[in-house]
Each structure stands twice: as structure tokens, then as C-alpha cells.
């Protein structure tokens, strides 16, 4: 074999990286863009790509018809990429209530070249916004949520907006009840309005620059955060997760928004007591691997550790980023031995061999591997995103779910034994 292919050596201690784990990266952008009211996305891509992305959007995104410029050999070689995309934009703009046509340019369109200046800025009553998300260049689906959101903000937000005191923009796709709970608590501290991005409202995007502060709930919105910093909008560190995290977060918001410190401390302490009571009522005693690909795995690990669990291994699809660093530091100082970014299935399997966990929160292939060993396992994406997570209420819901799953161990063992027997017979 020639030498150009001998770079197979892995970083020390890390196994082969054969099966990287992420949904198609473009899906993150498509999901965010399909869920906005009045938004009718146009994809530019080939048959297989359109089929797959439309499928998962109809499963996880929205009950929304998806138009596309269909790019096959004829269109790509015949220089009809722009023509087809423009035609699809015109069609999308005719949908009832259409106010936004995001154009999602995917691998083959990006490789072939899709010139932004050849696309209209407006169609019908809609703004047309190009979002470039080739899967070969962006390596995980959480990160394309950031690409999509920052593209929308660049184009739609009214940057000359008057800054409004005591208002806060929350950043991250979260369980719908979470922003309500957060808003309720913040109002008691004196906050007058919160908004959650990315959400279902175009209006919220337009007003984004009018908020007094930004609070990222997820750590992979680096471009979006950079926008807010450019607008001189301060960014709150951390997130309202767990006991200490929530307390610190509420205090930061109090000081950034110049709220009454006495009231803030009172609200934060009450919330801390409630969170502590949740942990006291149902402390965890288990070894858990947190190995999803949603980009918020470190925050979940942190909550589990605070509740008493041992989390020796955390892995995620996103790359290392300053926004993740506080959680990483926190976890490492409390016993987490490995934190793997841009993980592959092989990393997770190696951890399964090494740590013999009581519970796995992971991707579907990895959960299947854990269940084949009789270990309780939950698909992180479907199960954890479907429950409240933030503040004491989210903590109670998430910990109850974790405990319930741990209690189900005999069922996992019975299934494993039953089907192993069947295979051996």
C-alpha cells in the first residue's frame, strides 16, 4: 500500500472512527426553518438527499409540504441549478401566508455552485434567504441550526431596534414547557419579556436586536452568539440546569439586566431549594453514559452528576467550542474521565466495554448495542428532548424519567436473555 493512506493511526487511546454519529447535518437547519410559521423552505439537491431530508422533516420537523429544485445530471451539467431553484422559490412564495422562503443549498448544489446574487431577495410577499449547509463541510446537525439562525438574523433582524431594558432572548430549541417555566421565574425577578430563538415566529427574529441580553441554552450557536455580541448585546454564560448551574445563571441575569439584587437572590435561593429538594427526593445512584448527538449532552451529564450519578463518559457530535468549555471543566472536576467531541460509534462502544454502565442515553445504533447486553438504553434525541429539562421542574421530570428507566433493568435483562437463547438454539 502506498504511504498516502497510512494515516490510520488514531489519537492515543481512541479507537477507529469508522462510523461518525450525527443526523444528516443539513437536517438541523431544515428542522429550524420548517417550523417557522409562514416559512416555506426550498431545497436544492439530488433525489436521494431530498427523499431523506423530506422524510425526517416530516417526522421531526413539521407537517409541511417541502418544495425543491431537483438536481440530477441534466440540471447539474446543463447549468440549470439557478433556474430550477428560482422556479421553486416562485412556487413556494405562492403558498398561503408565505412570508419567508429559506433556500437550503445542499451537497451537490454547493459542489456545483449556487451563486447567491443570482437568487431573488424577495418573492411574492416573502423574503428569500439562502442557507448553505453542505454536509461535507459542516459535521453535525446541531451546528446547522446555528447556520440557519444566523442567516435569518443577518437578513431579517432590525438592527436599529431600540434596546429594551429587562428583556432577554433565550437561545436554543427546547421542550415547549421549558421557556414558559423560565419566563415565569424571570418575571418574578423583574424581567419584563423573554423570547425563545429559534422559534415559530418571524416577528421574534425581526426584533432580536432589541433584547437587553442573550442567554444561550445550548452551546453550539457560536455564529448566532457572535451576532449578538456585534450588536453589543451581552451574553449570559451557563444555563439554568441543575442546582448550582441554575443559581449562578439567575444571578448572572440579575446583574446583566440590573435587576433588584435582593429580589434576584430571593428567587434564586428559592429555586435552589426546590432543586435540592428534587435531588433529595430522588437521588441517583448509577453509572450513566451520556452519548447523544444533539450537542447538549454535557448539560445533561452535569445534571445527572449533581443528582448523584457517576458519568465517566460523555460524547457528542459537535466540535469543541468555548461555549462548551464551562460544562467540560465542571464535569472533569467531578469525575468525568472522557469527553469526546465529533464522536463515532466506535468511541461509544469502547466506553461501553470500559465502563459497564447501568444506563445509556445515546444514538440508535449505540442504544441497540447496549440493549444487546441487557443494559437499559434510551435514544437521547427522542426521549430527552420530549421532556422538560431546565430549572427544578425540568430536573424533576428528567430525573424521574432516568430513575424509571433504571428501574426497568430486569425487563432489559429478560429481553436480552430471551433473544440470546433464541439465537443460540
Amino acid at each position, binding site marked *: 500500500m502506498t504511504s498516502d493512506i497510512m*494515516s490510520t493511526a488514531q489519537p492515543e487511546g481512541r479507537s477507529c472512527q469508522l462510523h461518525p454519529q450525527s443526523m444528516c447535518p443539513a437536517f438541523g437547519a431544515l428542522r429550524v426553518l420548517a417550523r417557522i410559521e409562514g416559512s416555506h423552505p426550498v431545497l436544492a439537491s439530488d*433525489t*436521494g438527499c431530498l427523499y431523506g431530508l423530506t422524510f425526517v422533516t416530516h*417526522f421531526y420537523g413539521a407537517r409541511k409540504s417541502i418544495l425543491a429544485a431537483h438536481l440530477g445530471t441534466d440540471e447539474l451539467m446543463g447549468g440549470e441549478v439557478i433556474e430550477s431553484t428560482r422556479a421553486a422559490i416562485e412556487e413556494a412564495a405562492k403558498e398561503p401566508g408565505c412570508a419567508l422562503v429559506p433556500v437550503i443549498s445542499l451537497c451537490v448544489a454547493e459542489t456545483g455552485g449556487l451563486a447567491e446574487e443570482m437568487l431573488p431577495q424577495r418573492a411574492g410577499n416573502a423574503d428569500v434567504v439562502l442557507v448553505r449547509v453542505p454536509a461535507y463541510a459542516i459535521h453535525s446537525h446541531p451546528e446547522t441550526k446555528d447556520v440557519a439562525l444566523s442567516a435569518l438574523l443577518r437578513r431579517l433582524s432590525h438592527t436599529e431596534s431600540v434596546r429594551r431594558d429587562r428583556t432577554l432572548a433565550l437561545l436554543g430549541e427546547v421542550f415547549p414547557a421549558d421557556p414558559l417555566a423560565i419566563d415565569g421565574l424571570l418575571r418574578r425577578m423583574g424581567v419584563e419579556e423573554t423570547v425563545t430563538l429559534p422559534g415559530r415566529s418571524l416577528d421574534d427574529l425581526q426584533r432580536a436586536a432589541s433584547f437587553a441580553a442573550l442567554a444561550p441554552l445550548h452551546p453550539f450557536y457560536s455564529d448566532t452568539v457572535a451576532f449578538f455580541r456585534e450588536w453589543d448585546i451581552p451574553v449570559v454564560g451557563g444555563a439554568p440546569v441543575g442546582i448550582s448551574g441554575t443559581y449562578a445563571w439567575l444571578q448572572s441575569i440579575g446583574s446583566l439586566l440590573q435587576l433588584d439584587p435582593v429580589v434576584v437572590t430571593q428567587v434564586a435561593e428559592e429555586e435552589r431549594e426546590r432543586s435540592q429538594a428534587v435531588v433529595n427526593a430522588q437521588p441517583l445512584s448509577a453509572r450513566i453514559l451520556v452519548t447523544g448527538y444533539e450537542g447538549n449532552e454535557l448539560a445533561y451529564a452535569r445534571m445527572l452528576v449533581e443528582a448523584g450519578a457517576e458519568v465517566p463518559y460523555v460524547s457528542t457530535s459537535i466540535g469543541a467550542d468555548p461555549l462548551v468549555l464551562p460544562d467540560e471543566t465542571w464535569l472533569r472536576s467531578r469525575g468525568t474521565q472522557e469527553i469526546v467531541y465529533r464522536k463515532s460509534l466506535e468511541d461509544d462502544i469502547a466506553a461501553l466495554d470500559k465502563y459497564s454502565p447501568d444506563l445509556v442515553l445515546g444514538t440508535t445504533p449505540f442504544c441497540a448495542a447496549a440493549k444487546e447486553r441487557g443494559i437499559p438504553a434510551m435514544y437521547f434525541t427522542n426521549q430527552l428532548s420530549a421532556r422538560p429539562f431546565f430549572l427544578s421542574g425540568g430536573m424533576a421530570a428528567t430525573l424521574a424519567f432516568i430513575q424509571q428507566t433504571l428501574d426497568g433493568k430486569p425487563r432489559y435483562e429478560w429481553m436480552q436473555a430471551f433473544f440470546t437463547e433464541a439465537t443460540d438454539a
Partner: protein
Amino acid sequence: MPSIVRDMPETSSYWAAIWTLGTLPDVHVICDAPIGCFNLAATAVPDYTDAIPHIENITPSVIRETEVNTTGTGPAVKRVFQDLRDEGLLDNKHLIVVSTAESEMIGSDLTDLVTQLQPGARFFHSESLTEDEWTGRDRILAWLWDNYGAENAARMAVEPGVVNIIGPTYGCFNSASDLHEVCRLIEGAGGRVNMVFPFEARLSEIAELACAQVNVVLYKEFGQTLAESLGRPWIHAPIGMRDTTAFVRQLGHWLGTTEEAEAFIQHEKQTTLQAVWDLWRGPQGDWFASLSVGIVATGTYVDGLSAYLGEELGLSIAFTVSRPRRSAEIETEALRALLHARPPNLVYGSMNEKIYLSEGGARQASFIPAAFPGPIVRRSVGTPFMGYRGAVYLIQDIVNRLYEALYNVLPLDSAYAPSGVPIPAPSVGAKRGNLPWTSEAKAILDEALENLPYLARISASRELQMRVEAVAQQRGFSEVTPEVASQVLVSQGK
């Protein structure tokens, strides 16, 4: 010509290739793909179409910017090959490298490179930028035969009574049930099932396809080229009572088991098919001719359901759209408009048609899953569309949906239905009892009813009438005017 597509209803030949190869346990595939084409086709979608955690014997080359802009995909494929080999994942496996739209886009033809990786390794150019999943499946099945089976075929002796089934692969709607039923029919006709290729086969045994006396091609969309290559008589799998009876007879004729086949048909009439005879003789059968049906599915299902439901049972087939679409059929835009404006009682289709019914507010049409795309588990073998059991399952399902529709149109006291729109109470002093309708107003009501499917009309006629009269009475009118009628009726769902 600009090329626009709405809700892409069928996938590419790359997906077809890996959904075919993935079923063969002694194959390992390297897909020359970015992470997305690997995740979607090998995990995210088959999770929900085939109810499997993921396809295990496939590894991506992971095309990144370097491969696109600088090196091409050759070095990445070599790296993946070495890792797989070193991990022992290629032991006793046939290695096949498959191109994707993106690798084709950058012109990555790895034919020469792959044959050098290990003896027997091959490159399959999936033509994913050009071909759809149907052509793709047909082509790779024939390619597998040409590359791994044909040279050993001469050594295989044809065994009397032995039958192959060609199809399914992953991603074939309802395949577990249809396959199970077709196996039963073959055995009933006096045959013995040899290979189910590729779904229950190993690539190393492919030459044994030559042992069969007859081949059954499960679908019209693919498998025919392989069947022709095998040079034996072949037949498509049947849907409906007439087609199934002809199928069993034909097999009996070819296999020399006519007596067995006839006895099986007789026995089925007295057992399995009794349910159809009973429903036909009972009150259920009287509804059939009043029911309208729309079908969006593979050509196999469209032809089979049209023949069975339409010709044999007398339901009225409102429209059909095949996958792949036939030139005389309506395009997606027209299909969507039709489902918005005037949906039939029963709509067989995919997630796409389900969404169009939701968009149009079609509460009275019954959606019946019959095609991909769309998440659905069909791993139980009890839901066939094919064969005699399929004839029973299809009509049983329709009758149960009728019962459901009837239940939903029975009046429910509005005090118990907080989510429903209550019929407003007449204001004090307003005229009570039935109001007279102007002829224009009556025409508006008739038109609204005409757009509803049969059955829904029965109770809707009363309910819509009450709603309009209630509003008219509330406003103190002494008759129903066209204005009131159109105002109220325009807001009604279908």
C-alpha cells in the same frame, strides 16, 4: 426546463443499492458518502421504514471538504478499507464500494482502486444523479447475478417444484406480510421456496438461484431483469382474488402440480376467503359501490388495488398515481389540489398524501398507509395486500374504517365535546323550528355537501343545516339567505 419537485416521493439508486446490499449478511458496503447520505439511508430512515436500529454492514468514506476540493475520495475509501480490515469487519465478507450523488458529482470513479483493495472487492457505480430507486434495485440485482452468480450457474441442476422469490429489499412497504403470503401461496400451489433474494439470502449462495424451476418477482418495479437473466418462467406476485387464483393455477401448471393447486384454491375459498364471501353477502358489501378510493403507491399496489377494490368489489376508484409515476397520471401539484378540494372516502398513500389531507382539513377522509415515504412499522405478517390473505385484510381494514367513520358522524351532545364548535343557541325571541331556505342558499348547502365523501354527508347534511339555521336565527332572520349560508359553510372542514 426548470425541475421542481414537491415532497420527493421516491429515492435514488444509491439508496436502492445499499438497501439491497444491506440485507446480505456476507456483504460489507463502503458507501462513498458524506455523513448525511450515510446517516439518512443507513439509520434515520430505515429506523422508521423497516423498524431496524440501523443497517450494520455499511461504513461511510465520510466525504469532507478535503475530498471535495483536493484529494477526491480514493484515499478516504482506502483508509476506511484498512480500518475495517484491521478490525476484522471484512472477514468472510464480500466488499462492495457504492458511489453516491456527491461522489459522482466530483467524478469519483473508484473501479480500479477497489479491485486492488482485496480479491473480489468491487465498485458499484450507482448512477445516483440519474436513476431512481426502482431502476437502481433492478440494476443492482442483475449486477449481483452477473458478478457473483452467473459463472457458477451452469453447475446448478434445476430442481422440480422449486421456486425463487425476487424481492423485497429494505424500504419496500409492507414487505414482511406480502412475502409471507406469497410463500404460502407457492407452497399451496405445490411448490417449495428455494431462495428469497436478496432478503433472506447470502451472496455466496447466489448461484443457487439457478436451481429454481420458476421465479416469482414480488414487484413490478424491479427484479424483472434478474428474472430474465435466470432464463426460467417467471410471474409477478398477485393482488386480489382473481389475480391470486390465476397465479396459483399458473404455478401449478409450470410445476406440474395442477391438482394440488386446484385443491388449494378450493380449500382457500372455504377457509381464508370465507370472510370476503361473508362480508359480500352481509350488509357491509352494500356499501362498497358507494365508496370512493384514491390510490398513491407503487405500480404494483396501484394495479392490484384497482383491480381488487375496483373491478372485483365495485368500489369507485377516484384516481391513482403510481410510483414511479406513469405518464398519464396527474403530477403532485394536481394531486395535492385534488386532496385539498375533494378527497375521496379512502386515500391509500404515503406521508405526503397524509399531509395534503391535513392541509385541506379533510376530517372525513380516511388515510390508509400504503406507500413510503412515511414512518410505519409493518413487521407483523398479518397485514398483507397480496394473495388471498391480502384480499381479506384489505376489505377488513376498509370495513373497520367505515365503522370508524360512522362512529364519528353519530351526533354527540355538544356539552360533552369541548373541542367541537358548539352550535349557537337561538337568541331570545328568535323564531324557532326549521327555517325556510332561499333556493340560492340551498344550492350553496348542496355544493358544500357534494364536496364531502359519501357517509360523511349523511350527518353533515343535518349538522351543517343546523349550524346555518342557528346563525340565521341568532340574527333574527326569518329565512336562510345565501350570505349566511356561504359565510357559515365556507369555514367548514371537509
